[in-house]
Every structure is written in structure tokens, then in C-alpha cells.
């Protein structure tokens, strides 16, 4: 506030020096003329002081002073004329002070002189008391006025201050270390250690038991030239993270197929580019989040590695460097790897990686993160708190084991704690099984167009189970041929098939089993369709079998067969359909229509004409019609006599 504009020249000060030079007694001379000159300036309005009648009687000193006064007067006049008082910031202050000083001097002199009682004396007079008191109203008004003036000054000052502060803040908001620190404090755990500020980016407070200390240090970014223009991304606060948490990391889960027949499992790479840095986020925040992610990835991998070594499985899990390899199914390899890239190496690494197809299983990677968080949460579970409070820590249900005499099975169920690896392998198995089931159904559907196969997948799955509804239909006859509806529940190791009638069949993870099963179902469907059609056409079902015990042995499943007779019983159609051998359709004619049948001597009577004649095979492929059921309908129609 004191830094007002510098005043280069001041007439007064020059004048002052002059006074000092002239007057031998510095102080006295110096002050006196000032006060007197002021006084004189006022007196001059009333009295012609300049004549100085008594000046000759005065001593030299006085004369000098007198002259000085005159000079000062002139000087002062000059000052007021030539210079605006505002040029010297203290002008009005000084003038007022001077007049005050004059008054004080007069008071002093009067009092001193009166005390001597030579020239003046004090004489007591009695005065009425009323006059003593200034009227209250006057006091009020004057006080109000003074207060108003003071208030105005204060308000003005406050206004200036707020304006100044606001401006300053606007300028410094981005660059102020302390405000940055405040922001950091609101999002991260900080503590002061000596003269250092340390932060904690570990997941310990969320329940992690990973031994990494996860400490970062907050540093004030001072290596910037304040005179130069500050770069846009400059931040006065920087964080120093442990060297092993630098760079970025992610967990990669992928399934590699050793045999090419297994369907492609890779999903589309949705996040090819690194996630964009949020606009407006502080550089330290981004840095800390990445470091925290590195730490979490490390923890996940450490946990998985530990489990991989501890868990015994038929095919042991292999932990090599930053990769864990496991075999969920024969010929299949699940690999979980920790990819940690530190800055510069990135470029050299990325080029070969691009060529490889992206086979991330993002769902599993995400689930791994979720699982480790679940692990963390467990360690902070309120069930660990003892009740009564004097008891030692331990899981609530474990404490009950003793007093309630839990048996081995109950204890095992308490202790059963599936590890991260087991869970993720199970999930991987399920994902694999689901994908392959989908592929099997799809390939069947594209390969075989009669009957048609449809799959309806449910959108919502469990991590270990999902289901699909498979319908086998014939085109154009969807309404009458609804025989085969299958619900496939895909689990971790196997697929459970639920028929519409409630039968349950369990299939293993082998692809061939599902394929064979579906083929046999499709073959059965055709026979079912004939049965349904017969009902609609008014034909009678003479025999029906899903599993025919005669004829060629099918390599997959069994052949099924049906025989239907026309309404008047003259004709009969027999169909045999096998998953492998395909369909064979025979028509039986009434005896009398068979011209080539040798007339038997035994069956002479006319009534025998109604006996069934021999079967003739229909050249099915030559039949007209776009699919099996349509052909069958045409055949039936042809064999039904016109009324």
C-alpha cells in the first residue's frame, strides 16, 4: 500500500533544505518556519502582515526568519500554482497536519503565556451549566457524519481489496501450490513427515494386504522461470511416485488355442487407444491414478502367482516371469500376464504387438479387478469384529465353530475360500464353453437349412452360467411343428440340456457331443413334423418310434420312424429318418392298384383287394417342394382321394 507513484521533485523539500542551510539550529528552525508560515498564510487574509512594522526591532535571526517567511509564502504560492497537490500523495495529509500543528502551537503558547501571568491571565467566571453540554442532537449528527465518513473510507478500501484479491486469484488459481495441495488433499491421503509431504496411493485403506508401501512424495515444482511465459500445462505441484510404479500397466487375459479348430475367441479391441486424459484433470492426478493402477495390477498378479503355485491341479499352472499359464481344457491355454511398460520402451514394444491379433478377454480382465476389490472388502468385513468386544479378532462364524461343535463339512464350508485364480479359470472355462456352443449352433444352422435351427441367447448371465434356448423348426410350418425346444444351460465344465418335457441330458465340454446331440434332435424333428402334419391332414398314425431298433445302425444316435395311413386307409406312408443315413420315404398302395402284382390263387375274392399292397420307395430328392415337410404335405395330398 505504501508503494504509491514515486515523486521526483518537490518544491517543498527543496525549500526545506534551504531553511536548514540558513538556520543554524536545525530542528527548531526547521519546524518553526513551517508552522508560522502556515499561520501567516491565514493571517494574511485579515492582516497586512507584509509591512512588518516591528521587524526592525527584531534581531537578525528574526529578520532572516521574516524574510524566509516571505519567501516561503511565495514558494508556497508557487507550489499551489504550479503543482497539483495530487502529485505528492501526502499533500492533503500534510496540510491538515500542519494546520493541526499550528493550532497546537497557539494553544501551547497561550497556555504558557497565561501561566506566566505577565501578559495574560486566567480569570474564573461563573457560567451556566447548560451551556456546558453540547446538545445531543448536534452530537448525534456529528457522530453520524463522522461514522459515515469512516465507513465510506473503509468500504472503499474493502472494495479495492476484494477487487484486488479477486483479480489475483483469477490469475493464480491454476498456479498456486497451496490450492493445488488442497485439491490433492481432498482426493488422496497425505501426511507430513518432517519437511516432506508424503501421500499414500496403496489400497490399504480399502483393505488390501499387499505389502507394497505405495508412498508418493509431493514436491513443489520450482524449476520454472517465472519471468518467462508460463506454459499451459504448468503445475506448481508435482508428485514423485516410486520408481517401480512408473509407467502404465494392465493385466492381459487371453486364451490361446493349440488346435486351430477351436473357434475364434478374440473380441474386438474396444480400447485400442489409451483412454484419453480427462480434460481439466491435474497432471498429478493422472499420474497418481496410473501409478495406483500399476500397483493394483501388481497386486492382482502377485495374488494369482501365489495361488498358481499353491493350488494343486491335474495340469500344474505355470508361472513364468510375468505370465501365468493354465490349461482349463485340453488343447486350450489360458494365459494371464502382467504388462507393465515404462515410458520409453513403449515404442519399440508396440510395433510387433500390432501385428498380432488382439486376443484380450476384456471381461475377465475387468472381473479380475472386481475380484481383487472383493478380496479387499473381505478384510474389512464387519463380521471380523468380535462380539463380545473382549474376544479376539476372527470371523464371526469361525468363532461359532467351537461352541456350536461344527462338524468337518461345516468348517470346510467356512474355510472354503476360492482363490482368485480358481475363480478366473472357472470364468474363462465358462466363457470358452459359451463361445464354442454358440459357434457349434451357428455352424449347424448355416450348414443345414432343413430343418432350421434357431438359438435365443439370454442377455443376462452369471459369470459361471448362461443359457440359450434352441428351437428346431421347419420353414413355413413353425406353427404346427413345435416339437423340439431345448434349453441349454452352459456351465463351467458341462452343458445341461433341458427338454421341453423335462428330460435332462448332461453333455461334457466336448464340442462333438453337442453337435451329435443336435443332429439327432434335428432328425427326430422331421419325424415329429410328419406326425403333426398327419394330424392336420386327417391321416392316422399307425406307428411311431423315436428310436428304431431295426435297419442300419446309425453312427450318431438312433433313427426314428413313423407310419401314417390316409383317412380311408387306402394308402400308408412310412418314413424313416436317421441323423446320418438321412430319410427314406415309402408309400404303401392298396392291393388293387398294384398292376404288377401277380394275381394270387389264394386271394381271389374281391374283398382281399382292400389288403395293403407292397411298399414303394419315393424318390424323395425328386419330389417337389422346398423342404421336407412341404414335400410330405404334397405327398399326402396326392394320396388323398378327391371327394
Amino acid at each position, binding site marked *: 500500500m505504501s508503494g504509491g507513484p514515486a515523486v521526483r521533485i518537490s518544491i517543498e523539500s527543496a525549500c526545506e533544505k534551504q531553511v536548514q542551510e540558513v538556520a543554524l539550529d536545525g530542528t527548531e528552525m526547521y519546524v518553526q518556519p513551517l508552522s508560522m508560515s502556515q499561520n501567516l498564510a491565514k493571517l494574511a487574509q485579515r492582516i497586512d502582515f507584509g509591512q512588518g512594522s516591528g521587524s526592525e526591532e527584531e534581531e537578525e535571526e528574526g529578520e532572516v526568519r521574516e524574510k524566509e517567511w516571505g519567501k516561503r509564502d511565495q514558494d508556497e504560492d508557487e507550489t499551489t500554482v504550479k503543482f497539483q497537490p495530487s502529485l505528492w500523495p501526502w499533500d492533503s495529509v500534510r496540510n491538515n497536519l500542519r494546520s493541526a500543528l499550528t493550532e497546537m502551537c497557539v494553544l501551547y503558547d497561550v497556555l504558557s503565556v497565561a501561566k506566566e501571568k505577565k501578559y495574560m491571565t486566567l480569570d474564573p467566571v461563573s457560567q451556566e451549566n447548560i451551556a456546558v453540554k453540547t446538545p445531543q442532537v448536534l452530537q448525534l449528527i456529528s457522530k453520524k457524519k463522522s461514522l459515515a465518513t469512516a465507513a465510506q473510507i473503509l468500504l472503499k478500501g474493502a472494495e479495492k481489496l476484494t477487487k484486488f484479491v479477486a483479480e489475483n486469484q483469477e490469475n493464480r488459481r491454476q498456479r498456486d501450490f497451496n490450492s493445488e495441495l488442497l485439491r490433492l488433499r481432498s482426493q488422496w491421503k497425505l501426511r507430513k513427515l518432517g519437511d516432506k509431504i508424503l501421500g499414500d496411493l496403496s489400497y490399504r485403506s480399502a483393505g488390501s494386504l499387499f505389502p507394497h508401501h505405495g508412498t508418493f512424495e509431493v514436491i513443489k515444482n520450482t524449476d520454472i522461470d517465472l519471468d518467462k511465459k508460463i506454459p499451459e500445462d504448468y503445475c506448481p505441484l508435482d508428485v514423485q511416485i516410486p520408481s517401480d510404479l512408473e509407467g502404465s500397466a494392465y493385466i492381459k487375459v487371453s486364451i490361446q488355442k493349440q488346435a486351430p479348430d477351436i473357434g475364434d475367441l478374440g473380441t474386438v479391441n474396444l480400447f485400442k487407444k489409451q483412454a484419453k486424459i480427462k480434460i481439466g484433470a491435474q497432471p498429478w492426478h493422472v499420474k497418481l491414478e496410473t501409478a495406483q493402477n500399476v500397483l493394483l495390477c501388481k497386486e492382482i498378479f502377485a495374488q494369482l502367482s501365489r495361488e498358481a503355485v499353491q493350488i494343486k491341479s491335474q495340469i500344474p499352472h505355470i508361472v513364468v516371469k510375468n505370465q501365468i499359464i493354465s490349461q482349463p481344457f485340453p488343447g486350450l491355454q489360458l494365459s494371464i500376464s502382467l504388462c507393465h511398460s515404462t515410458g520409453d520402451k513403449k515404442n519399440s514394444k508396440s510395433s510387433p504387438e500390432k501385428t498380432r491379433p488382439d486376443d484380450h478377454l476384456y471381461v475377465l480382465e475387468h472381473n479380475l479387478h472386481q475380484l481383487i476389490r472383493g478380496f479387499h472388502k473381505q478384510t474389512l468385513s464387519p463380521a471380523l469384529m468380535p*462380539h463380545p468386544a473382549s474376544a*479376539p479378532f476372527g470371523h464371526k462364524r469361525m468363532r461359532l465353530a467351537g461352541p456350536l461343535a461344527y462338524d468337518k463339512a461345516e468348517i470346510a464350508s467356512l474355510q472354503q475360500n476360492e482363490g482368485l485364480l480358481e475363480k478366473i479359470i472357472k470364468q474363462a472355462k465358462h466363457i470358452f464353453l459359451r463361445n464354442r456352443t454358440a459357434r457349434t449352433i451357428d455352424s449347424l444352422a448355416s450348414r443345414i437349412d432343413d430343418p432350421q435351427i434357431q438359438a435365443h441367447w439370454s442377455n443376462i448371465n452369471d459369470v459361471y452360467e448362461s443359457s440359450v434356448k434352441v428351437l428346431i423348426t421347419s420353414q413355413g410350418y413353425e406353427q404346427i411343428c413345435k416339437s423340439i425346444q431345448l434349453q441349454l444351460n452352459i456351465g463351467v465344465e458341462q452343458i445341461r440340456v433341458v427338454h421341453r418335457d423335462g428330460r435332462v441330458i448332461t453333455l461334457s465340454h466336448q464340442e462333438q457331443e453337442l453337435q451329435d446331440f443336435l443332429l439327432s434332435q434335428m432328425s427326430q424333428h422331421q419325424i415329429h413334423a410328419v406326425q403333426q402334419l398327419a394330424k392336420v391332414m386327417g391321416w392316422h398314425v399307425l406307428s411311431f418310434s423315436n428310436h428304431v431298433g431295426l435297419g442300419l445302425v446309425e453312427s450318431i444316435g438312433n433313427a426314428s420312424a413313423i407310419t401314417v395311413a390316409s383317412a380311408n386307409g387306402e394308402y400308408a406312408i412310412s418314413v424313416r429318418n436317421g441323423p446320418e443315413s438321412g430319410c427314406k420315404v415309402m408309400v404303401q398302395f392298396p392291393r388293387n392298384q398294384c398292376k404288377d402284382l401277380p394275381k394270387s390263387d389264394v386271394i381271389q375274392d374281391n374283398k382281399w383287394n382292400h389288403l395293403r399292397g407292397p411298399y414303394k420307395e419315393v424318390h424323395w430328392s425328386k419330389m417337389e417342394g422346398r423342404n421336407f415337410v412341404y414335400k410330405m404335405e404334397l405327398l399326402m395330398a396326392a394320396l388323398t382321394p378327391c371327394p
Partner: protein
Amino acid sequence: MEAPPVTVLPVSGGTINMMEYLLQGSVLDQSLESLLHRLRGLCDNMEPDTFVDHEMVFLLKGQQGSPFILRARHSLDRPNAPWHLRYLGQPEVGDKSRHALVRNCVDVAVSHNLTEFLSEMGFRMDHEFVAKGHIFRKGALKVVVCKLYRLLLPGNTESTENLSLSNLVELSMLAPAGQDTVSDDMRNFAEQLKPLVHLEKIDPKRLM
């Protein structure tokens, strides 16, 4: 019947020779909130847990002068939780290098018919109280802040009376014998509660 010969038997189960490290202090009711607040910040990030317990202290007199003391405690707000039977050994406070009181301790979780069984064994109840408060945890450290109530009618936990205007604060940790380093952790933790609460080793003999 002839009395069977007495032999020393090795312990067949359980944890042998566990020690409890303990620091005690108290906080006035009006400062309780600030203490809880601080503890929430210092301790593991768990849901704050409260408890209401009823403790009964049982004595068994032998021909030697001093009785055998057992403490039976059960939770009033969680009636299904097992009862807690506790033996506490003679407290050691003398060692200056150890920053906490140490005493031998045996914790047994038992079924609910404990009082009946203890009286069958010849134990007699000496005193009882109700403790109501908060429990915190930091790793293996346990912090219990509770208010004590005396029972107006013996055995009736419904009608109780406040014992004092202060809350008892106990910082404890279980460790196998000889692991005195844990007392350093406890002291460090106790330091962080100052000046709100002064946790110290209090020799109970001094208070007799």
C-alpha cells in the same frame, strides 16, 4: 474310589501362551465424539461397530489365599454370538522398555450355558457390569471405547446405572509371548491419540 494319579498333561489343542498387551485410559463424555472421530480416521476403514456386553467375573477359591478369576462375557445386542470366557494372568508393568502392560491370557469361546457350568465347577460370581461402546481395529490392534454401567439388580441387565462421566479406552493386542516389539506399535498409536486421551500402562495393584 481311588483318586487317579495326577500328571502334567501336554496341551492337546488351542493356542499356548498368548499374551495380551494393554494400554488404558479414559475420555470424558464431552470429548467422546472427537475421540471417535479421530479413531475413525486412524483405524482400518471399516463400518463403525458398536457393542453392548455383559461381563461377569467369577472366583474360585482354593485353600491358598488367592482365588482363581475367570471372566465371562456375552454380547447383549448379538444374543447368538458365543459367550467369551477369559483368563487373565498377573499383569507385568515393571519393564520400562516395554511400553504396554502385558498379561497372560486365554480366550475361550463357549456355549451359552457357561454360568451354570462355572457354578458347577465351584466358581462364584464376584461382580458384573455392562459395557456399551465402540470397537475399532487397526491391523491386529484393537481399540475399545466403552462406557461402564453397574447393574442395579444382580443379573438384570435391563436396569443399569452409569458408573462415571468418562469412557474407558483400551488399546490391546494379542501376541505370542516374547513379541515385545508390538508394544512399540501400540505406543506409536497411543501417541497419535494425545492429547485427547493419554493411554498408559496402569498397574491395577496401585488401584487396590
